[in-house]
């Protein structure tokens, strides 16, 4: 019991430390902020790209790239030219640490039950071995969700990312019905911390702030990609599960080790596959089979450890 408490205390401490460094680092950190939200005296509330709301001194601010809503919507729809983002998930390395889920929920301001990234416990047939499977949006090349959207609120960019415009979504939820991967979530009630984020300019590339009555889903952290950073989940993984990169370059980089390898080589040598490929959705997320696993399957063990 004692040990558990100290562990929790440690985690809390770690959280504070992280926030502390966040505020301390001003320059580059601030330029990554979405927008000045509210001016109170000489303190200004800012939303960081990792989803934290921080208050900083106005004097610390340097003018940075803060596009207006319409500008942001426009470039968000256009995407990053010449790219075709691709993700590879190595199932042999996943031990259900769920750092990806935590990072994702922090970044996209999601409630605990809303998952852009969901680590599932899979078992393909009665006698096959169970394994953990992180499941983001597949960013299909033949996306069933954008096919059915009546208002073009969800769409596929030329860089391969399937995005949602929460400023346009009418909340018909046809895309949830159409998605065979259950990748989409809906804001059934007021989103998490909606009061805190009130007035913050909407960022289509992160779906934040979340909007009530609209859809949200994994978007490969498109805002981070624009800044040249790996998606939140990829960076957060402690077990080098995720590889992410540009298929046009044929290179993927591991979020944990920073190692860069050839994408085609990686999926060729490890028998990479896509999820539910028989449905013809042509996912942009590839899986490496859970063979030669580094961590044994331990059910819900992450809760205790």
């Amino acid at each position: 019991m004692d040990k558990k408490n100290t562990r929790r205390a440690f985690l809390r401490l770690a959280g504070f430390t992280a926030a502390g460094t966040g505020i301390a680092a001003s320059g580059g950190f601030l330029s990554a902020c979405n927008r000045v939200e509210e001016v109170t005296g000489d303190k200004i509330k800012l939303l960081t790209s990792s989803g934290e709301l921080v208050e900083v001194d106005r004097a610390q601010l340097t003018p940075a790239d803060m596009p207006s809503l319409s500008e942001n919507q426009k470039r968000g729809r256009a995407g990053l030219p010449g790219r075709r983002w691709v993700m590879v998930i190595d199932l042999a390395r996943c031990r259900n640490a769920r750092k990806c889920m935590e990072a994702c929920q922090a970044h996209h301001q999601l409630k605990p039950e809303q998952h852009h990234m969901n680590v599932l416990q899979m078992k393909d047939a009665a006698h096959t071995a169970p394994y953990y499977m992180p499941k983001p949006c597949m960013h299909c090349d033949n996306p069933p969700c954008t096919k059915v959207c009546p208002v073009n609120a969800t769409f596929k960019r030329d860089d391969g990312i399937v995005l949602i415009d929460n400023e346009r979504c009418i909340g018909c939820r046809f895309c949830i019905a159409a998605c065979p991967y259950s990748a989409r979530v809906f804001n059934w009630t007021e989103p998490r911390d909606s009061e805190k984020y009130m007035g913050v300019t909407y960022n289509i590339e992160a779906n934040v702030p979340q909007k009530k009555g609209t859809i949200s889903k994994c978007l490969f952290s498109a805002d981070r990609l624009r800044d040249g950073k790996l998606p939140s989940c990829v960076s957060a993984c402690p077990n080098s599960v995720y590889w992410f990169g540009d298929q046009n370059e044929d290179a993927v980089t591991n979020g944990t080790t920073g190692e860069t390898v050839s994408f085609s080589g990686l999926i060729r040598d490890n028998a990479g596959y896509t999820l539910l490929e028989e449905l013809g959705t042509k996912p942009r997320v590839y899986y490496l089979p859970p063979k030669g696993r580094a961590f044994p399957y331990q059910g819900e063990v992450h809760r205790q450890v």
Partner: protein
Amino acid sequence: MTIKKSPEESRDRLDKIFHDLTRSLRVKDELSRFWLFILIMFCIVGVWAWGYQIQQGLGITGMRDYVSWAMYISNFVFFVAVSLIGLLISSIMHLLKIRWAQPVSRVAEQVAIAAVALAGIIIVMDMGRPDRFLNVFLHGRFASPIIWDVTVITTYLTISALLFYLPLIPDLALMKNRLKGKVPGWQYKIYDILSLGWKGNPQQFKLVYHSLRILMLLIIPVGLAIHTVTSWLFASTLRAGWDTTIFGPYFVAGAFVAGTAAVILVMYVYRVRYRLKEYFNDEVFDRMGKTLVFVCLVYLYFNVNEFLVPGYKMKVAEGIHLTELFFGRHALAFWFTMIAGLILPIVLGVIKYFRRPLPITLIALITLIASWFKRYIIVVPTMEHPHLPVQNVPEHFVHYSPTNPEITITLFAFFASFLIVTVLAKLFPVITIWEYAEHQGIDKKYMFEDYDQN
């Protein structure tokens, strides 16, 4: 053909027919006031519940990320289904010159208008952001079945209204002629405006017949489209239970069952309430009973196809879905829809005794309720079984059960449709007077002769 009647006989007969068929306009007793009061109260409560839902978000319903379409969509499909009866009775049967169906056609149009209007309203109530409804027109994506659905529902509602209105014009003229001072001024004004100063001359009748024939032809593709497109909302997805090619005709066949049952019910209420025994006579009920049996047989055929083929193969996802339907959580509702909604009307409907007005009405009532559950069974179980496991979410995400506001809004939809039918019946005769009179051998010239003199 009916033998032409003499002028005197014609005039007397017309007076009698007119008197009977405008009784619905005149009945203003306690019961009808009470009925209207109930309807309006329910509608107000329903609108209030919707307001509450807009304020709180769709989270007040039982729907969650996995079962994200549920009772509202079931209602939508149900109302679209019921509305299709307008196509069958007032178009196809008219074009085939089926005489007995003539008095039913206006009832069918009433039901069609009420149902399709409510289908449109309920789908807006299902939206997460009804305030952005205009986006459908501003940013409409023509490849989306929802846009097709919006288009086709609007078109169908317009055609149904025209099909209701065109044969009504001569009736309006008759009412304008005969009801001066007998109805409130505003009501008379409506008749005056809508009758377009009808004179009853042959050219005008020719134009009415001409327009009606075009509309009856036009409503066939539009009517089939409305329900086929609605079925595509499901069939265009990759989910087990929806991912099938027969959904279009399957839905159309099911729609005729629901619509026929609804029309029988409304007919029976008119027959009793407005003392129209001679008009909605035993023969009409007998024939409608036979129609019900026929459409049920067609629907049964599609049901066998829908369940036997995947059940024979038992592919993984389909297998889970079918097991759940046949023996699982939804087994009770499923077997109710199958037995009460299909087998019962067929087995009883072939016996002449059960095609008498009251028994067939009771059968129709059960069939209609089963039809609603059928829509529920089509929508909900499939949503509960996605391809990938449902994990890391609270228990109430996994299985759906409707909440009170949701049920209130569903009840609203029903009562609002009753209200539309009631208002239409209170304002306009429930059977086309001139057409009926003509079938009784009354020449059209006697109908509008008084009018010419005025």
